[in-house]
């Protein structure tokens, strides 16, 4: 079992969600986050006064998957979230120790 954590551009979220559904992903957790990478921040100008915005809004998508689905899911996310410009985001894949479904008490792959 793996956890895919993808930090993407907010306006790509709908495409990523739809594409993941198509490859059989049945659930995800989405959080609005802020951060910076190579894109850095940006500046805003109000009446000529410049404000530097260090952290840009991104969306963090977390998906827990069985091992066999991971490669396809990662490819799907890359395909759907890519604009080719700096700031498209990153994908982290980590091992999952345990998974429990609260309602039934199922564990492991069963719970995914």
């Amino acid at each position, binding site marked *: 079992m793996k956890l895919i954590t993808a930090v993407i551009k907010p306006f790509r979220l709908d495409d990523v969600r739809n594409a993941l559904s198509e490859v059989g992903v049945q659930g995800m957790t989405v959080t609005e986050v802020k951060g910076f990478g190579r894109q850095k921040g940006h500046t805003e100008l*109000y*009446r000529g006064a410049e404000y530097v915005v260090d952290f840009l809004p991104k969306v963090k998508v977390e998906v827990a998957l069985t091992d066999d689905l991971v490669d396809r899911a990662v490819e799907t996310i890359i395909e759907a979230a890519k604009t080719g410009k700096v700031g498209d985001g990153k994908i982290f894949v980590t091992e999952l120790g345990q998974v429990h479904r609260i309602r039934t008490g199922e564990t492991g792959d069963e719970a995914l």
Partner: protein
Amino acid sequence: MNALLKRLILPIIFLTWPAIGWSQTIDTGDTAWILTSTALVLFMTLPGLALFYAGLVGSRNVLSVVMQCFSIACLVSVIWVVCGYSLSFGGGNAYVGDFSIAWLSGVEADSVSGTIPESVFVMFQLTFAIITPALFVGAFAERMRFSALLLFTAAWVLVVYFPIVHWVWAEGGWLFEMGFRDFAGGAVVHVTAGVAALIAAIMMGNRKGFPNSGAPHNLPMTVTGACMLWVGWFGFNAGSALGSNGGAGMAMLVTHISAAVASLSWMTCEWVKYGKPSVLGIVTGMVAGLATITPASGFVGPIGGLFIGLSAGVGCFIATQFIKQKLKIDDSLDVFPVHGVGGMIGLLLLAVFSAERFDGLGLDGTILDQLGIQITGLLATIVWTAVASFVLLKVVNAISPLRVSSDEETEGLDLVLHEEKGYNL
């Protein structure tokens, strides 16, 4: 019989003659328009100015500026009744009124002022007394303590606003008698508020992190408030004709023209200098255009409106950049460069555009004569406002510190001073 008639009737005619000759009658049309204008001018402060400012501060200070505008409206109303109206328009000397009509004594339902009921005049003028201190709230937004603000406001209207109203608008006031022209409050409202704002901003110091100390949190709110100001300003300027007539009509027309031209000219300046036209820029230009035409609105024609609007957009834009970027003064919401500088430009240009050759409604002397009077009045207003505001802020600071602590500033005034949050999302 004849003799008796003569004895009885002639004295009656004689006695009543002056009364007939001077009789002041109420004009219902004038009264209706000033009642309407009064509502429009109050609407400029609440909620117009309150929203305009609220959108420009950070989300953790949104309530504090609304609270300041609201409480100033209430506080000044009470002071106006107690002695403000009397100090402004009661006899007195050339510099300040007296207490002869304190507590509005003698203002009855049938008292007349010009062609409108005196009660309407009192109320109309009250709305001006409200918006003036509400304007300078923008200078020290996000850092002033509420109790200090109330103290300063009360002292300021007593020492600065009421006397200057008396100078300019009351019969017997020294600038009034000199022929100083300030139709709807370029000096009385905008220069006083602007200069007080600048002094307060310098004395209280910049916000933490200035110049990167917080972008506007809700520009649509600011635009909403600005649009209310535009509409309300028709009451402010056209209402200052104190009648429902051609003068009021022309004042409304030139007010609108100036606002539109100033919006476009600010937008253009910004577009040229920074590469993008901004929403905040176009609405700030509008406010500058309105403030600038204010003193001139009853004296100039459409051509004057166009030129004054253009000067407002360009002049106030340059002033704003200069105060923030060159002088590094955190007049947080640009009260001085927009209102103060706007009022000054309008007071000077009206001497030119009042002339009949520029489509204006005429001058008593030459343009240069009038310009001399305008400069005198303007300088007197600036000096008195600056000195008095400085002293009052020092005194208030000794009684109740003007500024919140650094930690409180970080936490936000809404929670620290009012124990509330603007948004629970």
